């Protein structure tokens, strides 16, 4: 048995390999990478704002703000991301028609962003809350004792410290989101994995293509996780870091 037969026996198709020398194929992958990164960044930005509000809501002393926030966070976190994405993919347009008029059509890109953001904001809310709670009580007390109001204390004392503590946790969340963008392919967004599928359904070489796609995901996420390790700076007190990690682990287990 020669080498070609051996590879074919294992599902590989050496006869298609010359196509990987064609720049057009790489441009095609490139478009997927761009879409994947774009969706991730937009989704994380949206999730950060929404997550911050949800975290503050959950920490509010007012019951009519706190309880709905808790209910929202806990129920969203209990749903599969894919379900949310599919929901917005199917129902997104009609959901926004009361606001944007009867002809409104929600672009698939934004349906994907909404699905991802809805879930991610609930997770970020918990990370932000853990960051805020990990600060010593004395910080709030000192600020309040100086006559700063509650919002001023949050804005100038608590959040600047809490957000700095959370940088590593949020970078980790970004890598999760990048991987989850692969789900957005199901509603017709041409992200990286979806581009790969388009290629291998034409050339019948899924193993080669998936290996390449896997390698691209790996490089992106590995670079990010290395970056986040650099960013830890040893600045966050150990205890605070551990508390935030607990939330993440709980989230991954859920």
């Amino acid at each position, binding site marked *: 048995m020669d080498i070609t037969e051996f590879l074919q026996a294992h599902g590989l198709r050496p006869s298609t390999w010359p196509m990987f020398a064609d720049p057009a194929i790489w441009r095609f992958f490139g478009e997927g990478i761009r879409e994947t990164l774009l969706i991730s960044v937009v989704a994380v930005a949206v999730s950060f704002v929404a997550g911050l509000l949800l975290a503050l809501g959950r920490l509010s002393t007012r019951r009519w703000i706190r309880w709905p926030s808790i209910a929202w966070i806990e129920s969203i976190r209990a749903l599969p991301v894919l379900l949310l994405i599919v929901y917005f993919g199917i129902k997104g347009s009609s959901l926004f028609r009361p606001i944007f008029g009867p002809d409104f059509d929600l672009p698939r890109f934004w349906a994907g962003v909404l699905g991802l953001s809805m879930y991610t904001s609930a997770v970020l809310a918990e990370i932000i809350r853990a960051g805020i709670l990990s600060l010593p009580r*004395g910080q709030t007390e*000192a600020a309040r004792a100086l*006559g700063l109001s509650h919002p001023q204390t949050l804005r100038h004392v608590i959040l600047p410290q809490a957000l700095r503590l959370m940088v590593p946790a949020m970078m980790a969340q970004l890598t999760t989101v990048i991987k989850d963008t692969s789900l957005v392919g199901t509603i017709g967004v041409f992200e990286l994995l979806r581009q790969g599928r388009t290629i291998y359904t034409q050339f019948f070489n899924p193993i080669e293509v998936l290996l390449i796609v896997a390698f691209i995901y790996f490089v992106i996420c590995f670079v990010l996780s290395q970056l986040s390790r650099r960013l830890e700076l040893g600045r966050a007190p150990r205890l605070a870091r551990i508390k935030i990690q607990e939330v993440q682990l709980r989230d991954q287990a859920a």
Partner: protein
Amino acid sequence: MIEFRDVHKHFGQLHVLRGIDLSLSEREVVVVIGPSGSGKSTMIRTINRLEPIDSGSLVVDGLRVHEKNVDVNRLRRDVGMVFQSFNLFPHLTAAENIMLAPMRARGLSRRESRERAERLLAKVGIPEKADVHPARLSGGQQQRVAIARALAMEPKIMLFDEPTSALDAEMIREVLDVMRQLASEGMTMVVITHEVGFAREASNRVVFMDEGRIIEDSPTATFFERPREERARQFLSKVIKH
């Protein structure tokens, strides 16, 4: 200036303040001593409403502190507080720590606040530390920044909750020196401390607390020469031996 009348406070089942009566006039310096768990800290924290009270009345600078419609933030601007654990804001430099409240709560400009911060840092003896973050300051320096931070609001009253308990012996002095100077300038002060030397030199009165009550309230000289209460006497003999 400060008037407690039959003030009670519970933490759940625990009755931590059991009928506090205490009054302070302007420019008076009162030292509060007593064993841990006697309610000293809780008592001082009710003055700026960091702790709510359950019953009784507490008037500070003409304000009924624990009434519902009191503007707490206004009250707190006039009552400075220094904590055992400093509680400086670690993400801000010494000067920024001092400038924050004057800028945000008093509406001073950045320049005015900066000038004030520099003046106060000079007053507490560390003008060269303005642009240093708290992590690079010694405990004594941190506590002096914390005092400057409280003074920046130009308070009428200063509260000190065991300001030297977290400090090494050699740093205690530099903090007490600043407090002594404040007392001599006529600041109204309530100080929880076991520093007998400071109490003797700088205070007008000593209040001894135990189990949520004020057991003795005497002029400083009287308290140290012939304490009326047996419990105060025992406590004093223990503290002074150290």
